[in-house]
C-alpha cells in the first residue's frame, strides 16, 4: 500500500508507534478486524433468511417476489458506482491530487445518499402496498401466508441495519472530506482515505450479498 505514493504524501507518526510502517500496518489490520465483525453481524441475519427459506419455502418465495426487485437492482448499480468513485479517491490520494480526491469523495457521498433516497422511496412503496407487517395498525398484503411476515420483517431489519451503516459511512465521509480539503492533509493522514475506502467497499460488499439473498435467490422455487 505504501508503495506508489507520490512525493509529499504520507502519514504523520503518532507518539506511541515506533515507525510509520508500524502505524500503517496497525491501522490496516485494525480495520480488517472490524470488517470481520461486520461480516459476522450481517451473516447472522443471512443465516436467519436461510432458515426461513428452509422452514417456510412458499411463504418466503411469496414474500421475496413482493420486494421491489428493480429498485434493489438499481441500488446495487448505485453502490457499484460509488465503489468506483471511492477507488478513484484512493488512487488520487496516492497520486497527491488533492482536489480530484475531494471531488471523488463528494461523488461517493452523493451516490451513497442516492442509495438512501432510493431506499427511502422503496420503503414508501412498500408501505403503500401494505408490505409493512410490523405495523400493527396496517393490514399486511400477504396476510393469507402468515409466515411471509417473517421474511418481510427480516428484510426490514437487514436493510435498515445496512442503511445505518451507510448513513454512518456518509457522515464520516463528509467529515473527512471537510478535513481532507485543507492543505497538508495528504502529507499527514493519507492512510485515512485508504482505511475509510476499505470500510466503504465492505459496506458495498454487504449489499452485494444482501441483494441476491433477500431479493433474487428466493424468487425461484
Amino acid at each position: 500500500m505504501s508503495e506508489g505514493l507520490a512525493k509529499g504524501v504520507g502519514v504523520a507518526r503518532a507518539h506511541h508507534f515506533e515507525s510509520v510502517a508500524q502505524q500503517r500496518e496497525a491501522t490496516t489490520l485494525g480495520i480488517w478486524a472490524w470488517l470481520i465483525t461486520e461480516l459476522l453481524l450481517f451473516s447472522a441475519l443471512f443465516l436467519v433468511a436461510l432458515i426461513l427459506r428452509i422452514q417456510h419455502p412458499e411463504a418466503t418465495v411469496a414474500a421475496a417476489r413482493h420486494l421491489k426487485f428493480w429498485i434493489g437492482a438499481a441500488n446495487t448499480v448505485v453502490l457499484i458506482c460509488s465503489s468506483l468513485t471511492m477507488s478513484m479517491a484512493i488512487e488520487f490520494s496516492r497520486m497527491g491530487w488533492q482536489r480530484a480526491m475531494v471531488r471523488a469523495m463528494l461523488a461517493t457521498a452523493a451516490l451513497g445518499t442516492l442509495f438512501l433516497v432510493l431506499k427511502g422511496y422503496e420503503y414508501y412503496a412498500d408501505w403503500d402496498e401494505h408490505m409493512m407487517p410490523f405495523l400493527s395498525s396496517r393490514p399486511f398484503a400477504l396476510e393469507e401466508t402468515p409466515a411471509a411476515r417473517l421474511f418481510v420483517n427480516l428484510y426490514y431489519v437487514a436493510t435498515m441495519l445496512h442503511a445505518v451503516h451507510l448513513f454512518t459511512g456518509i457522515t464520516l465521509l463528509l467529515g473527512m472530506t471537510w478535513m481532507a480539503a485543507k492543505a497538508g492533509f495528504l502529507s499527514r493522514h493519507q492512510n485515512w482515505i485508504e482505511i475509510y475506502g476499505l470500510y466503504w467497499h465492505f459496506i458495498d460488499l454487504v449489499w452485494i450479498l444482501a441483494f441476491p439473498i433477500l431479493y433474487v435467490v428466493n424468487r425461484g422455487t
Partner: protein
Amino acid sequence: MSASGTIEGAAHREPHAPEATIGRKPDYLHAESTLRSWFFTTDHKRIALLYLASITGFFVIGALAAGVVRLALVVPNGAIMTNDTYNKAFTIHGVVMVWFFLIPSIPATFGNFLIPLMIGAKDLAFPKLNLTSWYVFMTGALFTLVSVVLGGVDTGWTFYAPLSTAFSNTWVLPALIGVTIVGFSSILTGLNFVVTIHTMRAPGMTWFKLPIFVWTHYATSLIFLLATPVITTALILLIAERAFHVGVFDPAYGGDPVLFQHLFWFYSHPAVYIMVLPGMGVISEIVPAFARKKLFGYRFVAYASIGLASVTFFVWGHHMFINGQSDLASLVFSALSFAVAVPSAVKVYNWTATIHKGSLRLDTPMLYAMGYIGLFVLGGLTGLYLATLAINQHIHATYFVVAHFHYIMVGGTVLAFLGGLHFWWPKFTGRMYSEPWGRVSAILIFLGFNVTFFPQFILGYLGMPRRYATYPPEFQLLNVLSSAGATILAAGYIFPMLYLVYSLWFGRKAPANPWDAKGLEWETSSPPPTLNFVSPPEVPRIPYDYPIQATESKDQHR
C-alpha cells in the same frame, strides 16, 4: 502540564504519595491528578483502572443479587420472598455477573494494563478507541442498571424467546439494549488487543517469546471479534421482536424460538472461553513465578490457547440437547465437545508439571493459582458429564449445571482474577498488600466456594431443577449448606476489598519486581511511568527464564 508542578500538587493532596525522585519522571498514577486526566485519559494503564473500579462495582451488585438468591433458598416453600422477586434476583445476578463482570474482568483490566508492558510497547495500538470502549461499556451498563432500578428483569440471563419477547412483563428492553451495547465494548477491546499483539511487539519479541498471558489474550480477542457480532444480531432481532413483533423467533407467526438459542449459544459458549482463557493466562504467569521454574511445555500451552478458542466454536449445541434440536445435531455437538478435553488437559498437566521439582513459595497469588487448578479440573470434567448425551438428559437444567459452571466461572475466572490482582497489585499501585490477610482470604474463598457449590452437584443429580424459587423439602439440608458456604465466600470477598484499599495508602512501597518474576512488566518501575519504559526494554533470550529449567526437547526452548 509541567512535570514539577504536578508532583508538588500531588504531594499536597496526597501525603503518602511516593516522593519524586530527582531526574525520574512521575509514574502514570501521579503524572496528572485532575478528574479530567482520568476520565479523558488514553493511557492504557489508567483505562485499566477505570475498568477495575467499574467491574468491582458490578461484582458487588451481582454478589448482592446472589446473596438474595441464597437467602431465598434457605427455606423450601418460598416464604422469604415472592417467586417474582426470586426470578428477578437470579436474572440480575446472571446478567450482571456474565456481561458486566466476568467478560470484561481479566481482559479489560489486567489485559489492558499488562499486554503493552509484556510486549514492550508504549501503549495499545488505538488508545482513543480503548477509552471509547470504556465509555461504551458504561453506557451499556447504564441501560442495564436503569432496567434494574425500574423494577428488574425476570427472563434469566439467557433471554430465551418467546418468554423474553412476548410473555415477560418486566423491563426486558433496556436490559437487552444494555447487553447489546456492551458487546461493542468487547469488540473494540478485542480489536485493540489483536492489532497490538500483532504489530506493537518490541524488536526481538517474537511470538514464541511472548508470555502465555499474551497468547491467551490473543485467543480471547479472536473470540471477541468472531463471536460477539452474532449475539449483537441475535439481540437486535430480539429487541425488534419485542418492540415490533417481527416474528422470526415467535411461534405464533411460524417463527422458530430454537433459532434464537442457536445464535445465542454461538456467542455464549465461546464466551465461556472469553472468561476462562484470560484466567489461564494469569495462572500461567503465577505458577512459574512462584515455582521459580520455567513453564513446562510452553509451546503446547501456547497452541492450546488458540486450540481452545477455535474448538469452542464447534460445540455450542451441547447447551441444546433436550431443547428440540435434531438428534444428528446433538450427536455431532456432543462428539465435538469432547475435543475440548485435549487443550484443557494440556494446560492443567503442564501447570502441574511446572510445579514438579520447583522451589515453591506459597504466597497469596500461588494459593489462588493452586486453588484454580483444582477447581478448574473439577469444573471442566463435570462439563464432560454434561456433554455426554444420556447423562445430559438427566442433569440438564438442574443444579448440576449450576455447580459445573460456577466451578468454571468462580473457581476458575474469579480465583484467577483475585490471584492476578494480588500478583500485579504492586505493579498497578506501587504498594504491597498484607500477605497474611491475603493468605487468610484465599483460604476462606477456597473453602467457602466448595461448601457453597459442591452440594449443588449432589442436588443436581438428585434432580433439583435450577431457577426454582421453591423446591421439595427433602432438598433443604443441602440448600442450607450451600447458603452457609455462601456467607463464608462473602467474607472471603470482603477481606481483599478492605486490605487492598488499605494498602493504597498504608501499604509498604513496592519495588519494581517484588516477586523476582520474569517478564517485561517487571523490568519497569512499580508503578510504571506513563510511557511504560524509560529506556527500551531488552527482550529476554527465552520466555519464563527462571532459575530452574527442566530438560525439554530443544524445539521448546526456542
